[in-house]
């Protein structure tokens, strides 16, 4: 029996070709150097702004009052959230590996980075201690999700499975 192949399908199914050498190094040199701030640096700015805000709040308040004691507790609470966030953030960026990540995982990581940037922008706008606490908790939650996503992606890669296909099969 003769099999008949449809030309458009045959052409579309040809594998993509890859250049012998990447053009990226040459392109990178031609780009204007307007590199955006790395997210950890932005977080550092936000943290510093928050620390300054808390410090100003503290020195303008009598240390003998109950309110002062409460703020001190809030500061300790926020400082611990900031420390936790910093640890998660370090792990999040260390964990990302575009070489083994699927397009959807890369896109998800980029989405998380954008949300982090939004939170950091909020933290740099002199929020009240309560607002800051909420923002730092959101930051931690977001980083937790990112870590979980990348860990699952790495687990799938380790056993030779495609994370995108697994995602598709759950739909």
């Amino acid at each position, binding site marked *: 029996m003769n099999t008949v192949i*449809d030309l458009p399908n*045959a052409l579309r199914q040809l594998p993509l070709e890859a250049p*012998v050498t*990447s*053009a990226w190094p*040459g392109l990178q040199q031609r780009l204007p150097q307007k590199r*955006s701030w790395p997210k950890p640096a932005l977080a550092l700015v936000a943290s510093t702004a928050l620390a300054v805000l808390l410090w100003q709040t503290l020195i303008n308040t009598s240390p003998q009052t109950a309110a002062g004691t409460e703020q001190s507790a809030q500061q300790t609470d926020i400082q611990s959230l900031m420390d936790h966030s910093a640890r998660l953030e370090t792990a999040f960026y260390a964990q990302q590996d575009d070489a083994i990540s699927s397009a959807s995982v890369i896109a998800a990581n980029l989405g998380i980075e954008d949300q982090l940037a939004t939170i950091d922008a909020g933290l740099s706008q002199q929020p009240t201690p309560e607002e800051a606490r909420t923002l730092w908790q959101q930051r931690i939650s977001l980083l937790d999700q990112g870590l979980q996503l990348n860990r699952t992606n790495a687990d799938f890669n380790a056993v030779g499975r495609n994370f995108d296909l697994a995602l598709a099969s759950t739909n």
Partner: protein
Amino acid sequence: MSHSTHFAIDVPDSLIQRAKRGDVEAFEQIYRWFERPIYTLGLRLCGQPAEAQEVLQDSMIKVMTRISEFKGESPFWGWLRQIAVNEALMRLRRSAKGFKEEDVYDADLTDNGTAMPPQAAEAAQMIEALQTLPTLTCSVLWLYHVEGFTHEEIAGQMGKTPSFSKSQLARGTRKLRDTLAIRPATGIES
């Protein structure tokens, strides 16, 4: 327009916005996603790896310098692909094997059939057969069947008539069919 093209990658708007702000990492991500689709297009339209490499590089430079002009009214991949197609066709037009030597065509030569012999299912055989086609003919075949452009669109981009595009398509299809038919089919289940 067909969305079966390898260019049909949904680029997050946040990534485009970062690239517009000059974020190098965002550009690198865009480059990684489109490197192979652009290079493949360049190779099929221009015929040579060195030319495909130049199409890739020049297209990406244009994307980087003109990304602020992208308004988001159509998918980003379509905007980027049009830049790559223009670059490839401009290079083809300038080269020695450009449009002139292929100008003679028979407008009556029409062949709407797209059935190919079984050898067409083997990538290596199909690529070899494509390489036997005149570069311009191969370009029309690729733009029509893979990238989903219409004859009117192809004609507009090449500065030709739709009849020219149709006849190149018919001629290319016939030549491919003949070339593949005389080759031995291997590894195909019938």
